């Protein structure tokens, strides 16, 4: 039973560039949420995808966008990278958002460094 997988594991980009991160959810899960974790801090919610639509969004600018595919996998895109975007980006899968009290299953993240 495959868990949540993310790619790539590490990425180095230059300020102003664009980046795409990828996530495959745990088998049986149809909802993907993305989180940003800065060094020494807890994860912050970016947005969530369910049924190929963005369902919930946190306080992140429009430079952060995403997509969900019919097989439930998801992408996170960040445009016009800033130094402050350097962080660990975590993908979490779960059952549909209407099922409250369902825990999140996290991948090991993508470490993005912006220089």
């Amino acid at each position, binding site marked *: 039973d495959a868990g949540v997988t993310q790619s790539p594991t590490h990425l180095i980009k230059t300020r102003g560039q664009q980046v795409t991160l990828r996530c495959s959810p745990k088998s049986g899960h149809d909802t993907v949420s993305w989180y940003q974790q800065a060094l020494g801090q*807890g*994860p*912050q919610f970016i947005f969530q995808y369910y049924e190929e639509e963005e369902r919930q969004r946190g306080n992140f600018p429009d430079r952060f966008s995403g997509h969900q595919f019919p097989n439930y996998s998801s992408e996170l895109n960040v445009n016009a990278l800033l130094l402050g975007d350097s962080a*660990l980006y975590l993908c979490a899968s779960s*059952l549909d958002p209407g099922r*409250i009290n*369902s*825990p*999140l299953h*996290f991948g090991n993240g993508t470490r993005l460094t912006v220089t």
Partner: protein
Amino acid sequence: SQQGEEDPQALSIQEGENATMNCSYKTSINNLQWYRQNSGRGLVHLILIRSNEREKHSGRLRVTLDTSKKSSSLLITASRAADTASYFCATDARNTNAGKSTFGDGTTLTVKP
């Protein structure tokens, strides 16, 4: 800013001792969850406690929830070196859908062999 705050920020104990971490939050919640994170890796879900529950156990873990004080505690009994990690509490606010969790900044636990 984060809704949850863990206390203490760092905790160092000897193997075999108990470790207690506390979490406070600000709004009404559907549930509160505890996660563990080993250095630089993903978070592992430990336990979820619903807003109408007061205590929950899972193996060596005991979680309490006091909604009147908007606080929770995580107790790890008979700690092991392998318990060394960062521990985060997360809340799902009432009237929001699942998956949009608000995390604190964590407690870093070091268990010395």
